[in-house]
C-alpha cells in the first residue's frame, strides 16, 4: 500500500545529493567513469542511506547514525601534511612501504616511492583516472557489490586512493601500507583503491585509518583486491579513527585458484564503524584465514559484516572474529558463508566471540550459512560472556592484581585471533596495541 510513496529524505541524504551535484563535473575520470558514478549515485537516490529495516544493516542504522553529510575534503594544506608525518605509530617498528593519504588525497612527498621492487607499480587513483590507466579501467568497479549503498556512494564520489599492481610471480617483501590520515577538518573523504596481485605473486597490504579525536569527519573507503591464481596475499585493516569520526569501509576481493589469502581487521577506534568484507572464492583449492579483533569502549559502535562466497570447489576458509566490549560499547558481527552448488568439498568454519567487560555493553553476533552444495563441511559458532571469574581468581591467588589479571585474560582471548597473522612484527605490534588499550582502561 506504500507503493509509489517516496520516503522523506533525511538532512544527510539531501546534503549528499547536493555534494554530488556540486562535485560531479570536477570529479576525476573519463566519460565511462562518469557513467559509473551516475549509475552508482542512482542506487543511492533510489534506496537512500541504509537503515535498520534493511537486513544487512539491521544493527547499524546508517540513516540514524549519519545526522549530516560533511562537504568533500579540500586538498590538504601544509599543516595537515606536517601532522600526518607522525601517523602510523600503531605499527611500531614494522618496516613498510608507506603510501600516505591526507583527508583522502594522495601525498607523494610523504610516501615511499623510491626503489620500487621489481614487478611493483604504484600510483594514485586520481592520476590513474585522469590518464584512463588501462589497468584501472579493467578492474575498477568489477568487485563492488551491485546493491550496497555504502559502496555505491564511494563509487559516485571517489576522489583518490591507491592503484597497485604486482606482476605475476613477483614477491614484494616489504608490506605496502596505505596510511589514511584525517586532518582536523570535519570533512568527508571517499577513497577507492584497486590492488591487483597477479598469478603467483606474494604481497601484504596494510590499510590503516586514523584521525584526531573531537573532529566529526567522515570516511568512506573501499578497496577492490584481485588475488590471482597461486598468489599469496595478506590484507590487514586497522581502524584507529578519532572517537567522533564516522567510518565505513569495504574490502571486496576476488580470489583465484590455489591462492592463499589472509585478511585481518583490527578495530580500536572510531565513532560508528562499519567494516565490510565481500570475499569471493572464485578458484578451486584456496586456503583462507579471515580474522578480526575489536576493542571498543565508551559508546563506540563497530560492525563487521562479512560475506564469504564459496563459488568454487575444494576451498578452505577459517573465520575467527573476537570483540572486547567495555562501558556502553556495541559490537556487531554479521558473517555469512555462502556455498554455491558447484563448490563441493568446501571446508568453512566460522567462530565469533565477544567478551563483555561491562554490564552495559552489547554484542550482536549473527552467523549464517547458506549451503547449496551437498558435500561440504561447514560450521559456525557464536559466544558472548563476561570474564571467567574462576580463571581470574586463579590469577589473583598467585598475587596478580585484578586489573592485570583481567588484562592477561583479555590478551589471551584476542590472542587466538591475532596469532593467526603470519607477519611476526605486525603480530607483535597489534598485541602491543591491545596492551596499550588495556593500560588506558585501568589507568
Amino acid at each position, binding site marked *: 500500500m506504500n507503493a509509489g510513496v517516496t520516503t522523506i529524505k533525511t538532512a544527510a541524504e539531501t546534503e549528499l545529493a547536493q555534494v554530488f551535484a556540486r562535485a560531479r563535473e570536477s570529479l576525476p575520470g573519463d566519460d565511462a567513469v562518469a557513467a559509473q558514478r551516475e549509475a552508482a549515485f542512482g542506487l543511492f537516490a533510489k534506496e537512500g542511506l541504509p537503515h535498520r529495516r534493511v537486513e544487512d544493516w539491521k544493527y547499524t542504522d546508517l540513516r540514524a547514525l549519519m545526522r549530516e553529510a560533511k562537504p568533500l575534503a579540500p586538498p590538504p594544506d601544509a599543516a595537515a601534511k606536517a601532522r600526518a608525518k607522525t601517523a602510523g605509530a600503531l605499527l611500531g617498528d614494522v618496516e613498510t612501504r608507506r603510501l600516505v593519504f591526507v583527508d583522502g588525497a594522495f601525498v607523494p612527498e610523504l610516501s615511499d616511492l623510491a626503489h620500487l621492487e621489481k614487478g611493483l607499480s604504484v600510483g594514485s587513483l586520481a592520476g590513474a583516472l585522469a590518464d584512463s590507466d588501462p589497468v584501472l579501467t579493467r578492474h575498477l568497479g568489477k568487485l563492488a557489490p551491485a546493491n550496497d549503498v555504502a559502496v555505491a556512494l564511494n563509487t559516485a564520489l571517489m576522489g583518490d586512493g591507491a592503484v597497485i599492481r604486482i606482476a605475476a610471480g613477483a614477491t614484494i617483501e616489504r608490506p605496502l601500507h596505505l596510511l589514511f590520515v584525517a586532518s582536523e577538518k570535519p570533512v568527508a573523504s571517499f577513497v577507492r583503491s584497486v590492488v591487483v596481485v597477479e598469478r603467483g605473486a606474494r604481497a601484504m597490504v596494510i590499510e590503516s585509518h586514523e584521525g584526531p579525536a573531537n573532529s566529526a569527519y567522515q570516511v568512506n573507503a573501499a578497496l577492490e583486491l584481485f588475488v590471482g591464481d597461486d598468489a599469496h596475499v595478506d590484507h590487514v585493516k586497522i581502524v584507529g579513527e578519532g572517537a567522533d569520526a564516522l567510518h565505513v569501509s569495504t574490502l571486496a576481493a576476488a580470489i583465484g585458484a590455489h591462492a592463499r589469502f589472509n585478511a585481518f581487521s583490527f578495530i580500536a577506534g572510531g565513532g560508528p564503524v562499519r567494516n565490510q568484507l565481500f570475499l569471493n572464492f572464485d578458484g578451486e583449492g584456496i586456503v583462507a584465514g579471515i580474522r578480526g579483533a575489536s576493542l571498543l569502549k565508551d559508546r563506540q559502535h563497530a560492525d563487521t559484516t562479512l560475506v564469504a562466497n564459496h563459488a568454487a570447489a575444494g576451498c578452505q576458509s577459517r573465520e575467527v572474529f573476537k570483540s572486547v566490549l567495555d562501558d556502553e560499547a556495541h559490537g556487531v558481527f554479521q558473517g555469512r558463508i555462502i556455498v554455491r552448488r558447484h563448490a563441493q568439498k568446501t571446508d568453512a568454519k566460522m567462530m565469533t566471540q565477544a567478551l563483555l567487560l561491562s554490564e552495559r555493553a552489547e554484542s550482536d553476533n549473527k552467523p549464517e550459512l547458506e549451503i547449496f552444495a551437498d558435500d561440504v563441511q561447514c560450521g559456525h559458532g557464536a559466544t558472548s560472556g563476561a570474564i571467567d*571469574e*574462576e*580463571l581470574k*581468581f*586463579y*590469577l*589473583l*591467588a*598467585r*598475587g*596478580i*592484581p*585484578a586489573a*592485570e*589479571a583481567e588484562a*592477561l*585474560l583479555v*590478551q*589471551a*582471548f584476542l*590472542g*587466538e585471533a591475532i596469532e593467526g597473522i603470519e607477519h611476526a612484527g605486525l603480530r607483535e605490534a597489534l598485541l602491543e596495541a591491545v596492551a596499550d588499550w588495556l593500560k588506558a582502561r585501568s589507568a
Partner: protein
Amino acid sequence: MALLEIRNLHVEIDGKEILKGLDLTVNAGEVHAIMGPNGSGKSTLAYVLAGKADYEPTSGEVLFNGKNIFDMTPDERAAAGLFLAFQYPLEIPGVATMTFLRTALNAQRKKRGDPELSTPEFIKRVRETAGKLNIDQDMLRRAVNVGFSGGEKKRNEILQMALLEPRLAVLDETDSGLDIDALKIVADGVNRLRSPQRSFVVITHYQRLLSYIVPDIVHVLSAGRIVKTGGKELALELEARGYAEYQEEAVA
C-alpha cells in the same frame, strides 16, 4: 606469634553454613595435615583462606602473620606469602606459562617493594626450579595447564609454589588423581621447601600422601569443625578405621 591463627571461623556459601567454628593454629616451620570425609569443609577452608568470592566469613577471625586476612584482597594475601595449591588447577588458553609465572612473581615482588626480575634472571630461576622438580621444559612453553595431564597440572602448582616461595602453603588435595610416581615428585617438591620459616597445611582425604610429606600435626575436620588433633600416627589410625566415628561425633 603463630603464622596462622584461625579462631572460631564460620563460613557460609549461598547462605549455607559450611565451617562452623573452626580453630587452628599453625606456627612457623610446622606441617599440618587436615583430613576429613567428603563435605566436611576441607576445600572451603582452603578457598576462604585464599579469598575466593562467595565464601562468606560470618564470624570468627583469621590472622596471617598477625594481620586480619579479611582486610586483604586475594592478590594481597598472595603477596603477603599465602599460597594455595588448587585441587583443580585451571587451564588458561592463550596465556603462556612463562608469562603467567613472570607476571605473578613480579607482581608479588613489586607489592613487597622488591625490584622486578629481569627476563634473563627470571628465565634462569624458572629453569633451575623446574629442573629440581623434574619438570619438562616443554611444559613451560605451553599455555598455562592447557593439555596438561592431571599429574602435570599438580606439578605445575608445585613449581609455582617453589618460585613464589610463600610463608604458608595450603595444598588442597594435591594428591588427588596422582599416580605413585607423580605423588613422589610432588612430595619431594614440598619437602625441599620445608624450612623453619615456612609452614604447610596439607589437606587430604587419604593417608597416602602423608607417608611422603610427614606432618607434625594431624587434624580431623568433620562437619565444619576440627574434632580431633594428634600426631602423625593419627593419620594411620584414620586410614585403618575410617572417618565414621568422627562423623557421628560431629552430628551428636
